[in-house]
Every structure is written in C-alpha cells, then in structure tokens.
C-alpha cells in the first residue's frame, strides 16, 4: 500500500481522540478516498484512555493499519496502555504536549512538541488541523465534517471547533514529512459505515421485518440500528429479556412468515445452542449474527478474536444441520447477511453469520453501488389436498406454509416427527428425517460456493484463513508476491457446508500450506483437518489468541519462518 498513510490519536476521556479520528475519516470518505478506522479503549467504562487509528489511501484498502506514520499523544501515560498493540514506522512523527516528554524508547523518532491545550480548549481540533495540513487532507471537507458532526450541538460549539481547527492548520512545524499528492484525490464520495451497520443494512435489504435481540458488546449497534429503522419500514424490533427469548422470538416470527434475525456475541450464542436445534429439526429459517469477541466466557468483550468457530459449527446436541457463513470486511458483512437470509429462507434452517469486533466496530469506506445483492424469497407451499409439511424430497426442502394460509395447517415440533409433523420415536422415521435434513447441506454446498481466492495462479505457498484475517492475509500475499514469491490464499466465506472440493483442489495445488487464524486452539485448522486432507508435514499453522490485530508482517514472518524455512 504505497499510497496509504496511517495515524493514531491517543488521549484520555474528554480529550476527544476518537472524535478527531472520526472527522478525518468523514472528510476523506466525502472526498472519495478510502478509509479504515479503528478505535481502542482501556478498561474504564468511560473517561479512560482511548485511541483512534485512521488509515487512508487513494486505492481500496483491504486491511487495518500496520504501523503509524504519525501519532498524536495528549498524554504518554495513556499511550503506554496501547503501546504493545501499536506499531510505529521508523519515520513516524510524534506530536505531544511540551510538558509531557516522550519516553526514551521514542527518542529515535521525530518528536514535535505542540501546546495543544494552550492553543485551544478543543485540542483534538488542533490535532486534526495539524494532521490535515501535514497529509494535505482537504480542509473544506474537514470543516464540512465538523459541521455535520456537531450539528445538534448548535452554532457556538461548531464555531469553537472550526476555530480550533484553524489554529491547528496554521500551526506549521517546520518541514513536516511527506505530502501524499494522491490524497488530494477527488473521486465519487464513499459511504462510511461499520460492519455492524453493514450487517443491519443487509438485513433490511434482504427483507427482514423482525429483529429480536439482547444487548451485548460488540454487536449492540445492530440492535440500535434496527430499533431505529425497522419501525419505519413497518417491521418490528424487540429487545427481549435474554438471548433465549431473542432466538425463540425469531423462530416464532419466522414460523409465522417473517424474515427474522437476531444478533449477539459469544456469550449470547452459547445461550442459543438449544434453540438452534429446534430451528434445525423444525426446519424454520433463522438468521443469527455473531460478532465475535475475546473468549472464553465473558473474556475480553471489547477485542476481536476468531474463536467462536467451534461453537457455531458444532453447538447443540444431536445431529443438527446448520449453515455457518463468515464475512471478511465491512462491505462483506452486508453481502453475507443477505446470503444468510437467502439460504435460511430457501433451505429452512438456521444460518449463523460470523463477524467479529474488528469488522463490526471498525468504520470503512464503502461504495454505495456495491451494496446490491439478489434476494431470495421463501418457497411458500400452495395449499394442496394432502399437505405434508415434511415431505421427503430430493434436496431435503419440503413445502412450507405460514399461519393464515387456508388448508396449509400443520403441526411442528422439536420431537422427531414424520412427514406430517406428527411425533414419532421410530428408528426408520428418525433415520429418514435425519437424512432429509442433511441432504439440504449437500444442496447448499452445491449452490453456494462462497469463497475468495487471490494471489498467484500456481502458488508454491497456499494460505488458508477466514473472516477478518482475510484482508491482512491479502495484503501479505500481495506484498510477498511483489517481492517475487508465489503465494495464494483461499478464504471460504461459507464455513459449513465447506466448499470442500474447491478447497481440496487449492490445497493440492500448493506445495506448502499455512493456516492463519486468531484462535489459540487452532479451531479453523482442526476443522479443516476434519473436512479435507492437508498435506502431512507440509502444513504450518499460525494460530494465536485474539486481543491484538493480526498484522501483515506477522503473516509474512510466519510464511518465512514456519513454511519457507
């Protein structure tokens, strides 16, 4: 990413570091630049340390920032908290308060003292004034962003902020780093949205009219968005007493004919295990978005990890067919959610979408034109004389009616049942019904070969990864190939049923395999082993805990150390 810059702003609550990052991101999006923006917080509920990191480029971005070109620190005590999770490039410029000298380890960098607090009460505006000037981000866009952002706070606030911004712009420390000409790019304005917003918008796009949920970090923004928008389109958004009720209400609504969804994070998904089984055996569509965070248990609610995979794939007692999809980035959160509805509705089973904190809560520029996706409707059975709700069919999908349809009445249940839905404890019925329900997975595997493949056509090294790791791996692949290596990556977007033949073909094509994931227990690797053949002795694994973003250099190092060596 030659034409990309990255900077972070770090401060305490009240310093406005996060707002500062927001404003620059907004300005860049408006100007048609590509932006990826992440935030990090300390353990304090409010008022603790926070940091905002913005990566900007004139070309599309696929991964979050690797290292900073500039850094604004309002207090080094706060910076220390994030130090281990933040890389600085060798020519990084550090801005700080004169009376708060940088720690020794930053001595090698260019450190510039700026009396932020003295220059204006709105010191974050001063900071973006300086950064804007340094990186030549159009001032009028930033000013427009300030006006938009503080609209509700009134004129005086806007004025004060604009003024402080001006002070920052005027404050020109001598000879400041590179100016990226390309950043002055003026293309079509982009949308700026988070993965959670993209998923929620995807639900609306897919025709979702019912959402039930229980708040949980880092998924709650989906609930918030739909609480705002569903009533406007005549749908309903219900906050339930817990996750058991949320997924129950989704199944009930779907039974009654609505496209229905819930969203949660790991702890909530754990509570939904039993109802997953009901949705599967009663063959009632349901969509569950899981925005993963650090686990197990309450774990690390504010950080990202890829360790809910096992639970998504395998939770619920009994042989319980379900579909698991995974999105790779913000835009993909939209598409994956629509796919989830399409599959759930067409095949009458539960579909889990695995997102994660990194995708869900980061903001990315998205092209409005790309937010289109075909929508599939449930196949409603025509009233027939001898209606069999669970008729054996070739692809396992039986005609479904919904309450209100005359002559379409049926009984459903979580007990094993015959073609009419009547409870049965006979082995033969059980075996045939298990078979019918699992046949749907074959049909889906056939129809939905969702994956991304990028890099060399005849790779020496093949990387397998999923979800939010994909962007970083992609950037690593591009860099390695740029350096003369021959690397490719395969990223399934449907994890169950896995596109096994394509995956196997890819693996067989490669000399060596590297599996990359943010799960200490290497869940993805273990799952892959159970479904395809990985070359014995020629497969390496980069699997570590989440809680820290995967970096391009980490992937490259693993490729070199674990595989090439």
């Amino acid at each position, binding site marked *: 990413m030659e034409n990309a810059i990255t900077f972070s702003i770090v401060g305490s609550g009240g310093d406005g570091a996060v707002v500062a990052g927001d404003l620059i991101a907004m300005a860049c999006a408006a100007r048609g630049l590509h932006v990826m923006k992440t935030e990090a917080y300390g353990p304090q509920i409010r008022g603790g340390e926070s940091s905002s990191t913005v990566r900007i480029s004139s070309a599309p971005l696929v991964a979050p920032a690797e290292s900073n070109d500039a850094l604004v620190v309002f207090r080094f005590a706060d910076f220390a908290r994030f130090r281990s999770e933040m890389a600085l490039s060798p020519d990084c410029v550090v801005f700080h308060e004169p009376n708060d000298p940088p720690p020794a380890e930053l001595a090698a960098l260019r450190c510039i003292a700026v009396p932020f607090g003295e220059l204006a009460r709105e010191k974050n505006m001063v900071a973006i004034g300086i950064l804007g000037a340094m990186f030549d981000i159009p001032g009028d866009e930033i000013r427009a962003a300030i006006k938009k952002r503080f609209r509700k706070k009134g004129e005086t606030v806007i004025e004060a902020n604009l003024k402080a911004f001006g002070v920052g712009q005027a404050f020109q420390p001598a000879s400041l780093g590179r100016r990226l000409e390309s950043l002055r790019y003026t293309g079509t304005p982009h949308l700026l949205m988070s993965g959670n917003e993209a998923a929620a918008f995807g639900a609306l796009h897919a025709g979702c009219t019912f959402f039930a949920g229980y708040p949980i970090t880092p998924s709650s923004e989906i609930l918030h968005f739909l609480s705002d928008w569903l009533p406007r389109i005549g749908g309903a958004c219900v906050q339930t007493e817990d996750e058991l*009720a949320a997924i129950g209400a989704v199944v009930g609504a779907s039974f009654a004919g609505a496209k229905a969804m819930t969203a949660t994070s790991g702890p909530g998904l754990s509570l939904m295990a039993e109802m997953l089984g009901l949705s599967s055996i009663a063959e009632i569509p349901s969509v569950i978005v899981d925005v993963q965070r650090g686990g197990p248990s309450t774990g690390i609610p504010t950080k990202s990890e890829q360790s809910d995979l096992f639970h998504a794939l395998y939770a619920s007692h009994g042989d319980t067919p379900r579909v698991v999809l995974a999105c790779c980035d913000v835009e993909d959160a939209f598409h994956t959610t629509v796919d989830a509805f399409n599959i759930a509705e067409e095949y009458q089973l539960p579909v889990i979408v695995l997102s994660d904190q990194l995708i869900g809560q980061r903001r990315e520029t998205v092209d409005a034109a790309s937010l289109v996706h075909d929508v599939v409707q449930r196949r409603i059975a025509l009233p027939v004389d001898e209606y069999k709700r669970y008729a054996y069919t070739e692809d396992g999908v039986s005609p479904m009616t919904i*309450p*209100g349809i005359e002559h379409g009445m049926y009984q459903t249940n979580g007990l094993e049942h015959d073609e009419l839905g009547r409870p049965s404890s006979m082995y033969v019925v059980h075996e045939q019904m298990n078979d019918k329900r699992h046949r749907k997975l074959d049909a889906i595997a056939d129809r939905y070969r969702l994956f991304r493949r990028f890099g060399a056509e005849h790779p020496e090294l093949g990387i397998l990864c999923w979800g939010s790791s994909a962007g970083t791996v992609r950037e690593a692949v591009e860099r390695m190939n740029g350096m003369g290596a021959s690397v490719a990556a395969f990223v399934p977007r449907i994890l169950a049923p896995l596109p096994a033949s394509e995956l196997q073909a890819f693996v067989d094509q490669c000399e060596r395999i590297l599996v990359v994931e943010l799960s200490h227990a290497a869940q993805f690797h273990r799952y892959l082993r159970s479904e395809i053949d990985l070359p014995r002795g020629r497969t390496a694994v980069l699997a570590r805990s989440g809680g820290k973003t995967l970096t391009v250099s980490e992937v490259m190092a693993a490729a070199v150390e674990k595989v090439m060596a």
Partner: protein
Amino acid sequence: MNANDFKSDLKPVWCPGCGDFAVLNSVYRALAAAGCAPHETVLVSGIGCSSRLPGYVETYGFNSLHGRALPIAIGAKVASPRMTVVAVGGDGDGLAIGGNHFMHAARRNVDIAYIMMDNEIYGLTKGQAGPTTPTGDKTKSTTYGNPDPAIDPCALAISLGASWVARGFSGDVKGTTELMTRAIRHHGFAFLNILSPCVTWRGEEQHKELRAKTRAIPADHDVTSREAALRFTGEHDVLTTGVLYEVARPTLLDELAQIERRARGSAPPPTRDQILQLFQMR
C-alpha cells in the same frame, strides 16, 4: 366452525384419566366459541405431557422446547398480528424453566392467551416436584419431602402485571370453556391456570381433592381489584375458580403500533437510498 372442526386425527398419548383430556375438550369448544378460524390460529407449547396438546388441535401448531413456548408465541404474534396466538403448557414448563418468559410476557401485556395445565408435578419426566408441588410432598426428586413453598400461578401472574387472570378446574369442562373463551378474546396477556390432575403421579386423590375444594368466584367480586384477587389466591381450604382479575392497559402490540406511528408518521417507508444517506459524508 364448531368444536369438532378443531379436532385433529392424532390420538392423545395421555394416560387414561388424565385431566388434560378435559382441557383439550375445552380448547375445541373455546376456539369455536371465540370464533377463531383454524388457519388463523396458532397454538404454541413447550415440552411436557400437557405440551402435547397442540398436536391434537387442527390449527397451526408448534410443540417447541421445554420452557420456551412464550418467546415463540410472542415472535409469532408480533410478526403476524392477525393470528390468534394461544400458548399452552405445564406448571414446570411455565414456572420453572420458563419462569422468566412468563414474567416478561405478563409485564409487557403481550397479546396472547396463556393456558397453564397445572398438575402440581412434572408429569412427562415421571413425577418430580415442580414449582406448584405442595411443600413437604414426597416425589421422586424430593425423597424426604419437597423443601420449597408452592407458587400460586395466578397470584404470580397478577403480581407480574398480567391484565387478565383466571383459574379453572379441568373437571369442569363448561366453566373452563367459558374462561378459555374469554381468555382468547381478551385484549392483552390473558393467563388461565387450569388445575388438571395427573392420575399417574398424583393419584386419583388429587382429582377428588380438587373437585371438593373448588367453588365458583362470588358474583360480586371486583375483577379490577388486585387486592381482592390476591385474597382468593391466598385461600388454603378452598379453590376459587373464575376470573380473578381483569384490567385494560396498553398491550405490546398497541405500543409497537404507536412506535411505528412515531417512527414513520404518514410517510411512506424509506427507500434504500434514504437509509444509505445516513452513511453519506457529504
């Protein structure tokens, strides 16, 4: 539609003499009396002997998970308000594992009727104590006597905010049918507790005892008085049947409709581009 139109051709698995047969009978009659169309009626239950009931009724039916009838019923009702949604199940299903949903459904005054077949025992799992089992009773899981005080489901429902609460006895099909009809017609959360004996795990005596204790609610009872209602649920030697409590207050659907009005007013639904505007930075 008459009662017979609601009979499905599935044969109940209940023990001969089980109180639930009579309840089923009342369900047929009440659905007819309330003027429900079979295809616009949804019966949702949990798991238990009593929860088998939807299978025997010719409507849309859902015999779901132990304790989860109410969330499913609520989802169905909100998604399809035109349907008559009735939840049914046992005392264990509704008060033990499903207690939290009961609490919040009552509070929210969800527009469904909830019929509890209370046999003061876990029938299907073969006779363990449940939340309505009298203190001291020896059951399979309380070898030395049940340590816990019994819940009175009607008292609980009233405390939790249900807007219509009644008690019936399965032995009285006519009375129960009337109550059920009113429950179905009630605007809001209607809770009907039906004492329905379990001949297998509580013996024949339970039936006789209940019959002996039951008496109809006095005609002059003020159904809008919480205190008056709770006096009946506090009785020990008699068991008063009838509508104990009935008030009018906004239901969940009323509230959701109001939210929709506030959200949209008379504007048409937003277009895709109108929603996306939220993310436009210029």
